[in-house]
């Protein structure tokens, strides 16, 4: 390339033009995600947009070539690729929520580190306050997101107990609000000019880190879909704020898209649970209720059944609805469920899947698992579509789902999940619940469905039970 050409490629105008192409591709790629058929291409287009943004940024690096910068960048990229690629290629679909949490965390960590370095460069003033505000926002939120995501990862990976861990009573809220105020106060002191800036920025990062830990620790596993989307939104917004600080439009656009998407998903999830986002973040849901889990102490009885009986019920049904939950993910039973569906279809039974918006540990978790097992997506019905179908359903098979099928959500004002829209499985002619034992669901809430005379319980590992059912159905 001629010297002239090189110079042209390195002008600010050219780089900015490349940025515009990059964010246009990111947005265009995201529009592809609106349908399963265009989604693969959409994701690839977005990846190309990202690549253009990175290359355009590297063009600027000519100013410092020879100072070892290129090698350091390469080192970071190589380490990141070496860690990220194998993780992404090997992770099982059932482990997707923790993978997303982890990727989200490293993103937040990068934001926090970048904000820190930005400040180190501008110690001693010379930086406009209004830009500092955005960067401090990035530092606080990025740090919260990093640590919060790590805790979420730990809980989902079961390194940490997934039950709520919190201080007694309202102490937790007081501590959290206090920490947040300390972070904000430090940010104000820092931006109004102080002699110990190095100390303050570090203090902000540390306080936000503690806050990130304390905010997610009290949140129970069942609320993870909300937390993960919220942290995703946080990282996006902090990336956008960093973009303002660095005068970089593509970072702003990309960050805001993520912020918007995370916010939408968070609200959808919270709505699906009939709870407010602040109430979920306050945490501890189910912690108090779960203490005396009196499954059958009040004299109610449940009916246990065998795979043979259920197979007969299923094979002679006209319509069967499968309501999957986190238990299906844990048992990795999605392929077995698909095999059962095929066996039933071969007998002329109509099979549909009832997907509750918060079933599983992240938004759309069940859809991914069933897609992995090759279930056609037109068999997957959302809650509002499937609920009117239950009265016409002969057998509903509840596989590892609990709270999302709890009739108390509709009928018992005393229940902690009263008002949460649920799958009305108890309206079908018969219900078969596949469960390990009579232990209550994650939220520790008693489920009257299990004691319904129409309900029979098939105990055991979901995968083993479903496989057995399939064999029995095929033998009929």
């Amino acid at each position, binding site marked *: 390339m001629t010297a002239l050409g090189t110079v042209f490629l390195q002008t600010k105008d050219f780089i900015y033009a490349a940025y515009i192409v990059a964010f246009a591709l990111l947005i265009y790629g*995201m529009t592809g995600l*609106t349908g*399963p*058929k265009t*989604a*693969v291409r959409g*994701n690839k287009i977005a*990846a190309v947009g*990202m690549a253009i943004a990175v290359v355009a*940024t590297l063009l600027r*690096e000519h*100013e410092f070539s020879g*100072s070892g910068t290129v090698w*350091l*960048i390469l*080192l970071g990229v190589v*380490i*990141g690729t070496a*860690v*990220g*690629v194998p993780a*992404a290629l*090997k*992770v099982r*679909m059932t*482990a*997707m929520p923790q993978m*997303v949490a*982890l*990727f989200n965390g*490293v*993103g937040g*960590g*990068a934001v926090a*580190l*970048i904000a*820190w370095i930005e400040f180190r460069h501008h110690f001693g003033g010379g930086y406009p306050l209004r*830009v500092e505000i955005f960067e401090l926002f990035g530092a606080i939120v990025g740090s919260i997101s990093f640590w919060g995501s*790590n805790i979420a990862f730990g809980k989902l*990976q079961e390194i940490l107990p997934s039950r709520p861990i919190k201080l007694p009573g309202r102490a937790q809220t007081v501590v959290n609000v206090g920490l947040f105020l300390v972070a904000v106060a430090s940010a104000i002191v820092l931006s109004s000019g102080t002699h110990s800036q190095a100390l303050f920025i570090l203090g902000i990062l540390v306080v936000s880190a503690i806050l990130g830990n304390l905010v997610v620790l009290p949140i129970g596993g069942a609320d993870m879909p909300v937390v993960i989307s919220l942290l*995703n939104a946080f*990282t996006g917004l902090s*990336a*956008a704020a*960093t*973009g*303002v600080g*660095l005068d970089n439009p*593509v*970072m702003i*656009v*990309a960050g*805001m898209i993520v912020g*918007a*998407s995370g916010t939408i998903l968070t609200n*959808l999830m919270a709505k699906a649970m009939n709870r407010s986002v602040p109430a979920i973040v306050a945490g501890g849901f189910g912690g108090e209720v779960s203490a005396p889990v009196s499954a059958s102490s009040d004299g109610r009885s449940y009916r246990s059944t065998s795979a043979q009986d259920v197979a007969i019920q299923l094979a002679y049904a006209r319509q069967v609805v499968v309501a999957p939950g986190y238990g299906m993910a844990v048992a990795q039973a999605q392929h077995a469920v698909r095999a059962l569906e095929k066996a039933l279809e071969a007998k002329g039974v109509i099979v549909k899947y009832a997907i509750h918006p918060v079933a599983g540990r992240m*938004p759309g978790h069940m*859809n991914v698992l069933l897609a992995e097992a*090759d279930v056609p997506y037109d068999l*997957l019905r959302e809650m509002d579509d499937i609920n009117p179908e239950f009265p016409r359903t002969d057998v509903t098979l509840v596989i590892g789902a609990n709270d999302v099928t709890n009739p108390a959500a509709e009928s018992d004002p005393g229940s902690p999940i009263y008002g949460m829209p649920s799958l009305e499985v108890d309206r079908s002619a018969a219900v078969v619940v596949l469960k390990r034992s009579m232990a209550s669901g994650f939220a520790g809430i008693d489920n009257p469905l299990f004691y319904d005379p129409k309900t029979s319980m098939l105990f055991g590992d979901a995968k083993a039970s479903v496989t057995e059912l399939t064999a029995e159905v095929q033998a009929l």
Partner: protein
Amino acid sequence: MDSLVILIAVLVLAGFVGYTVISKVPNTLHTPLMSGTNAIHGIVVLGGLLLMAESSGFLEKLLLVIAVAFGTINVVGGFLVTDRMLEMFKGKRREEPAAAPKPDGSEGS
């Protein structure tokens, strides 16, 4: 016009664009949406690239290498995992590794 004002205008407009585009994504695709947008916020890696040149001293360089590595994990891992998921929605069978090792936590800093 002040460049900060322009940047904030971009910020606000991008928020609305994001909201409009993402609202149309069906429930079925919410997990891929989440991991796809997750990859997109890996754009912070640009911050690491930009600052690397200005950085001085071992600490700053070390932190930036970590930041770039984090950002790269975020971008590369995010897009790959989303691609894997979306291929499944297309209904094409792909070989699923039977027993994958757990993703290693890279929390070090």
